C-alpha cells in the first residue's frame, strides 16, 4: 500500500522538492568521494597495461561517461513514457533537465575516446561501430534539446519531446545493430579495449568505482536541476511563495 501511494506522491512537485533536498546532498557527496577515489586509484595506482602502457588509463573517464550517456537516454525514454501515459508534470521536468547532462556526457565520452585513439590507433577518429553510435546518440540529444527550444508553449514542448525520446529509444538498438553490421562486414577486426581476455581486478575495480560514482553524479545533477525547475515552474503556487518568503 505505501508503494502505491508513493507513486502518486512522487507525481507531486512539492513532495519531490521537499524530499529531494537531502537526496541531492547524499548523492553529491557519494559522487564526489567515489569519483575522486576511483580516478586517483585508476590514474595513479592501477598497473599499466602491458600493451598500451599508461594511455589506457583514460578508460577510467571514458567508459563511465559512455555508459552513463546511454543510461541517461533510457531515463529520458522512461520519463517520456510516464509523461505521455500518466501526464505527470514531474516527468516533463526530468525530460527537460536530464538532456544537458546526457549531452555533455556523450560529448565527453567522444572526446576522451578521440584522445585515447590518437596514441593507440594512431588517429583521432575512426568510423568504428561504437564511436559511430555514440555520435548518432549525440545528434539525438541535440534534436531533443533543439525541439524543446523551438516550441514556445512549455506543456506542448514537453510532450513533443516525450514522443521524440520514445522514438529515439526504439531506434537506438536498431542504430547500434546497423552500425555493428556495417563495420563487421568491412573491417575484419574491431579494436578491442583489452587484448587480454580479462582485466585483473586491480584494473577493473577503480573502473567499477568510477561507474558507480558517475551514476551518483547523474542522480545528483539531475535532482539539483530538477529542484530548480520545480521552483521555476511552480513559482506562482502558495508553497513556493512561502518557501521564498521564509528565506
Amino acid at each position, binding site marked *: 500500500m505505501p508503494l502505491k501511494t508513493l507513486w502518486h506522491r512522487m507525481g507531486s512537485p512539492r513532495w519531490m522538492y521537499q524530499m529531494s533536498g537531502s537526496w541531492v546532498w547524499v548523492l553529491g557527496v557519494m559522487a564526489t568521494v567515489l569519483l575522486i577515489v576511483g580516478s586517483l586509484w585508476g590514474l595513479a595506482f592501477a598497473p599499466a597495461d602491458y600493451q598500451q602502457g599508461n594511455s589506457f588509463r583514460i578508460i577510467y573517464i571514458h567508459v563511465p561517461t559512455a555508459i552513463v550517456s546511454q543510461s541517461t537516454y533510457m531515463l529520458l525514454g522512461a520519463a517520456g513514457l510516464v509523461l505521455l501515459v500518466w501526464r505527470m508534470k514531474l516527468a516533463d521536468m526530468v525530460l527537460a533537465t536530464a538532456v544537458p547532462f546526457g549531452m555533455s556526457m556523450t560529448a565527453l565520452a567522444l572526446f576522451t575516446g578521440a584522445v585515447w585513439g590518437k596514441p593507440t590507433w594512431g588517429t583521432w577518429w575512426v568510423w568504428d561501430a561504437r564511436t559511430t553510435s555514440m555520435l548518432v546518440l549525440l545528434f539525438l540529444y541535440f534534436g531533443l534539446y533543439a525541439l524543446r527550444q523551438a516550441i514556445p508553449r512549455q506543456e506542448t514542448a514537453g510532450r513533443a519531446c516525450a514522443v521524440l525520446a520514445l522514438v529515439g529509444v526504439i*531506434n537506438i538498438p536498431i542504430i547500434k545493430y546497423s552500425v555493428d553490421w556495417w563495420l563487421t562486414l568491412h573491417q575484419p577486426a574491431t579494436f578491442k579495449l583489452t587484448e587480454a581476455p580479462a582485466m585483473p581486478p586491480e584494473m577493473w575495480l577503480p573502473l567499477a568505482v568510477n561507474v558507480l560514482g558517475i551514476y551518483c553524479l547523474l542522480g545528483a545533477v539531475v535532482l539539483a536541476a530538477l529542484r530548480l525547475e520545480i521552483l521555476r515552474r511552480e513559482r506562482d503556487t502558495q508553497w513556493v511563495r512561502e518557501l521564498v518568503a521564509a528565506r
Partner: protein
Amino acid sequence: MSVAGVFVGQLRREFKLLLQSREELANPLIFLFLALTLFALGGGGSPEMLRDFAPAIIWVLVLLANLLALEGLFRRDYDDGSLEMLVLMAEPLFLPVLAKIFAHWIYSGLAMTVLAPLAALILFLPAEVLPTLLLTLLVGTPALSLIGAIGAALTVSLRRGGVLLALLVLPLYVPVLIFGAGAVVEAMAGIENMAQIYWLLVITMVALTIAPFLVSAALKISLEQ
C-alpha cells in the same frame, strides 16, 4: 464511414490536391537530380570515383530529397484547418495519417525509385547492380516516409521547422542508409546481400506498425497550442 472508406477517401483527396500543385510534386525530384549533378561536377566527373561513391551519393540524396518533401506533408492541412477536422473526426486518426504517408511515399520514395536508373546512369553505377539499387529503394523508402512523418508532425506548428526537422529526422534515418547503401556496395563487390534487404524490410515493417500511432499522438500535441 468504414475503416477502408476513411483511408481511401483521404487518399483520393491527397491525390487530387497533389495534382493541383504539380510543382510541389516535382521540386524534390528536381532537387535530387540537381544535387546529383553537383556531386558529379564537384567530383571532377571521374567515372571511377563517381562509381565507387554512387551508392552512398544516391542514398544520401534520396534521404535529403525525402526530407524536403516531408515539410509539406502536414503543413497545408495545418494552415487551412483541415488537420483539426481530421483530429476531431470520430474515426481513429491513424487511418487518414496512414493515407497521407502513403501518398507522400508515392510521390517521393516511389517516384525516386522509378527515376533511380537515371541517377545510376549519371554516376556510372554498373548496370548489373541496378536491380539491387531499385529493390533497396523500394523496400527502404517507405520507412523514410513513416519515420519522417513523426518529425513532420512534431514540427508542423513551427514557422521555421525546416532545419529542425532535418536535425530530428536524419539521425533516425541512419539504419536505413547503412543497410540501403550497404546492400548496393555489397552487390558491386559481388557479395551476397539479401540480409541487408531483409533488414530494410524489418525496419519498414516496424515503422509501419508504430509510426502511424506516434504521428497521430504528435499531431494532437502540435494542435494543442
